[in-house]
């Protein structure tokens, strides 16, 4: 069996070649590459939505209400107000992406800071930080998000803010665990003994090792965020209508599930595709950035 492990030890390699190796490992994951392509396409389509969309997503056509998919002029059909589903899906993506990416980015930064404090000063301030995060953990995520949204009123900023608050403890936990492990690692001990300040140790020794974990965790969670944001829309806490929101579109269509199933099925499929793409990319990144997983067959 020993013959099968062919990858040489990576000690002492230049970071650049490590990066190249990670990229190679990522490219080997076919589904991750497909995921990246899907996301890129989706982003391009989203950016170009005003140019390529066949209709105004908020402009209904009274004479074409609930037209089924594959009809001339409305490839994905129309909704209860006669609005083109394709146009609404395209414009809906303009919400879905920020709703997935911004909370993860915000929570990533805050979680990084809190997590490093929590993991590094684990006997003093960090303990207090982790206790507070424990409280946020214990409150069911959906409830916390809904209460925040109810407190602040619906709309994109609320959704982004409450999702950020909700996932921060999760990211902070990932960071604090990694930081706590690193704290006792030889090179960090060495840096401490050499008299480097905590700031420098955070910046030079811990951060570079923590960031990959956050990136992987964050990317994997962007898929969940797309789904979670749809939940807000579903409960009517999402973007202000008539702005198309995938979750709200599902809620809109669930009343006509029998006579016009496409109205809620189509946005559901859009959510699944984007979330799936994020999940595959996240998986690919995890394998690529974790040398232990990378070398495994």
């Amino acid at each position: 069996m020993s013959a099968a492990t062919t990858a040489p030890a990576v000690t002492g390699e230049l970071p650049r070649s490590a990066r190249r190796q990670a990229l190679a490992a990522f490219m080997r994951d076919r589904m991750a590459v497909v995921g990246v392509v899907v996301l890129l396409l989706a982003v391009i389509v989203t950016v170009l939505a005003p140019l390529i969309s066949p209709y105004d997503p908020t402009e209904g056509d009274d004479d074409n209400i609930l037209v089924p998919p594959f009809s001339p002029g409305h490839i994905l059909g129309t909704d209860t107000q006669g609005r083109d589903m394709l146009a609404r899906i395209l414009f809906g993506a303009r919400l879905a992406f920020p709703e997935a990416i911004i909370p993860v980015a915000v929570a990533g930064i805050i979680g990084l800071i809190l997590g490093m404090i929590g993991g590094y000063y684990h006997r003093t301030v960090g303990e207090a930080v982790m206790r507070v995060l424990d409280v946020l953990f214990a409150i069911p995520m959906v409830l916390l998000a809904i209460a925040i949204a109810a407190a602040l009123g619906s709309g994109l900023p609320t959704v982004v803010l409450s999702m950020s608050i909700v996932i921060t403890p999760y990211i902070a936990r990932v960071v604090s665990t990694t930081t706590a492990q690193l704290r006792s690692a030889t090179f960090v001990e060495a840096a401490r003994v050499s008299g480097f300040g905590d700031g420098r140790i955070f910046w030079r020794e811990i951060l570079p090792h923590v960031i990959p974990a956050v990136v992987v965790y964050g990317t994997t969670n962007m898929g969940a965020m797309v789904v979670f944001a749809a939940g807000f829309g579903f409960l009517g806490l999402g973007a202000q209508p008539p702005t198309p929101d995938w979750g709200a579109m599902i809620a809109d269509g669930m009343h006509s599930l029998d006579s016009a199933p496409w109205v809620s099925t189509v946005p559901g499929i859009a959510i699944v595709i984007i979330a799936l793409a994020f999940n595959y990319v996240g998986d690919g990144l995890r394998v690529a950035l974790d040398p232990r997983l990378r070398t495994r067959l």
Partner: protein
Amino acid sequence: MTALLEVSGLTVRFGSPSGEVHAVEDVSFAISSGESLGIVGESGSGKTVTCMSLSWLLPSPPTRYVGGRITFKGEELRPHQEKRLRHIRGRGIGMIFQNSRLSFDPAYRMGAQIAEVLRAHLPQPWRELRPEVIQTLQSCNIADAEAVLDKYPHEVSGGVAQRVSIALALLIRPDLLVADEPTTSLDLLSQIEVLALLEKLRRETGLAMILVSHDLSVVRRIADRVVIMYAGRIVEQGPAEAIFSDPRHPYTQGLLFSALQKREGGRLFELPGTPPDLAALPSGCSFRPRCPHAFAACEEMPALLPAGPAREARCHLLDPAARRD
């Protein structure tokens, strides 16, 4: 005397990202009851895969059993006949692994694991077997046998684990014991003890044994016959004394020489170069790139040629016809 185990043409491969790994190529040998066979080679020479393949132990896939015939006590063993093989494994062919601590499940106490194996092979209940287990453990130089049964693998030393492992193999009374690098991961003291134990076993029970090692001195102490492997193939085999006193293959010569140097504490002599990548073997003789005697004919893979009484070696040097070129 018919062979207890006969291996012929064994060929085992794996898939890997960098190509197909030719782990074992066309290996044939035999061992008779009461005989002890040493298999020697560097890591990656295919010796471990060979002995794992005796009862088709490696899961397939990913392992590909490309060819080979294994006859054990006159019965042909075929891969994938798991039901039949299960009774051969342990009962017919016992095995001892390189790192015995890892060969025990960390989640169970040693006693439970011994009991589980015995239950799989023997009709008697654990209660009846327990005294025998204690006795066997003690005969394997485990003083506090009772206590060991209650310990988890991570709570015993490597040497004790290895001795438990041997005791366990013996308790089922196999026809053949295969020991894969039994001393490699042990400290010096344990090495000596385990070797002494194996020697004692040989002496007292006459158990047939295959001992796999990269360490010539270990093999020399125990083996009647020796097989030398390089890059998945047998390069030389024959009676132990004959091979150690007069190695015929340049690789064997290199191995012996470096071992000698080491023992005499002199300058460390290592074979130049490294073993080849099994996924991209050089054409011709696999040893050619490292061989001090390589010549034109070596661009073709030599066959195993007779090299004395009951001896063979895979080298063109033994072929007068090849030398002519």
